[in-house]
């Protein structure tokens, strides 16, 4: 019998599978946090999760609403001051993966969380960079997860808050002491990876039931597909069960506050 699951669940499970056991992951709030904790509760029990609020090696029972929820601190190995987190742990090169979400992403995986429109007279003012600009350059590599839409996947971002590969794809060339940058983008439709030469994002895997035109319709540039286009493996029953339990626990906990 075929398993029933939503496209959001497909995205979370696929994003979770990107993390390997034993990796040290600097986790962004929202979708990345959901995926990272799902990884910890399934195939990667020893993944080390750290959040920018200073919590090192945290194992929250429920997903935090915010980056500094008490749950993160109580379940952490230790909690350090925010300057230490950014200076010693991130800038010091102790983080394998930065796991980020974003509002806008372009074909070279540059991220915009600053604003839509013109800087001086924005149409929409977004929250800003937070930890992302340095997570994206000081972590060994970067995973990005967000829902696929034309509003989010644009040819050129309105503002480069956080470097992917720069507006010409060469933004990391000849920069010393910089991570590999985005190595995969996981959406509710597909998985994308940068072309090794041009660094443009290319679809490498389609989720079950998704065809090329679904991705083309939701992408703001003429998106390319890999020659060896794969089909993303479906979530397992176990993964879905753990994800649903995690979300239900989280919802119950936050409803009572």
């Amino acid at each position, binding site marked *: 019998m075929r398993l029933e699951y939503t496209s959001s669940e497909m995205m979370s499970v696929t994003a979770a599978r990107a993390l390997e056991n034993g990796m040290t992951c600097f986790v962004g709030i929202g979708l990345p946090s959901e995926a990272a904790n799902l990884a910890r509760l399934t195939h990667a029990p020893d993944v080390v999760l750290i959040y920018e609020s200073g919590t090192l090696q945290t194992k929250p029972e429920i997903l935090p609403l915010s980056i*500094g929820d008490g749950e993160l601190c109580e379940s952490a190995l230790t*909690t350090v*001051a*925010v300057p230490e987190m*950014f200076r010693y742990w991130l*800038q010091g090169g102790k983080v394998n993966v930065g796991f980020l979400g974003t509002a806008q992403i372009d074909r070279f995986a*540059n991220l915009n969380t*600053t604003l839509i429109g013109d800087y001086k007279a924005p149409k929409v003012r977004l929250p800003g960079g937070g930890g992302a600009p*340095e997570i994206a350059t000081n972590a060994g590599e970067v995973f990005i997860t967000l829902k696929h839409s034309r509003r989010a996947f644009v040819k050129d971002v309105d503002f480069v808050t956080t470097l992917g590969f720069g507006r010409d794809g060469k933004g990391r060339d000849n920069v010393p002491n910089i991570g590999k940058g985005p190595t995969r983008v996981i959406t509710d439709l597909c998985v994308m990876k940068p072309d090794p030469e041009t660094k443009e994002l290319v679809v490498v895997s389609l989720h079950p039931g998704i065809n090329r035109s679904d991705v083309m319709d939701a992408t703001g540039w003429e998106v390319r597909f890999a020659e060896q286009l794969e089909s993303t493996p479906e979530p397992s029953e176990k993964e879905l069960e753990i994800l649903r339990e995690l979300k239900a626990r989280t919802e119950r906990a*936050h409803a009572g506050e």
Partner: protein
Amino acid sequence: MAEFLSLHDAVARYVQDGATVAMEGFTHLIPFAAGHEVIRQKKRELTLIRMTPDIIYDQLIGAGCAKKVIFSWGGNPGVGSLHRLRDAVEKGWPHKIDILEHSHAAMACAFEAGAAGLPLAVLRGYVGSELPSVNDQIKFIECPFTGERLAAVPSVRPDVSIIHAQRADRQGNVLVEGIVGVQKEAVLAAKHSIVTVEEIVDDLKSHPNACVIPGWAISAIAVAEKGALPSYTHGYYGRSNRFYKEWDAIARDRDTFTQWLDDNVFNVGDQA
């Protein structure tokens, strides 16, 4: 030496119109009671510094206290936008404010440099970001030893920093536990500091490595029970996620916001 004052008197003495003020708290221990006192005393033209201006800065901006905000992430954590911040930036209500934005790493380093008495902070930051094109306080310098290009930002030296903490002893030494954010650095970087605490105790009961700020490094201590609500105080009370969600609807509309401010800040007196 820290002086024990009422919250009213501490704010009246140290927060002057036109001052540069940092009210820190990284999601945890946000000094809401002190922020409300600043609103009640109708302080104006403040330059507000904070890594994560959340609801309390939304309230200060909407109440007309701010001239400028220096920040690195301005949102309602886990919920969405700060509508009062957006209304001020996008539409100039209640008046236009200036913003100067950084990344977290840069601000954390800038507070630390301020605490260390340095004029600038150096970090491996802002590589490939367009933030330096809109913030003239971000420069790049060459390492004199390796030649590496590094980002530099001015240190943060507020006129006054305000934080909330668990407790102080009778000598004014303050214990901060849990997510400690950048609060210690904010206090040490500032000319003056106000620490609000849940309670004054005979014995801090701190661990040997706890974050304790000595009384002689603080200007004023004021008791503000539940002074961090709707954020939380580790070991005392939890965060009201419900209020953070409700704030979205309150802050969206100018009239609803103004009414909320009257009911919950102006008309409750300084014991709230």
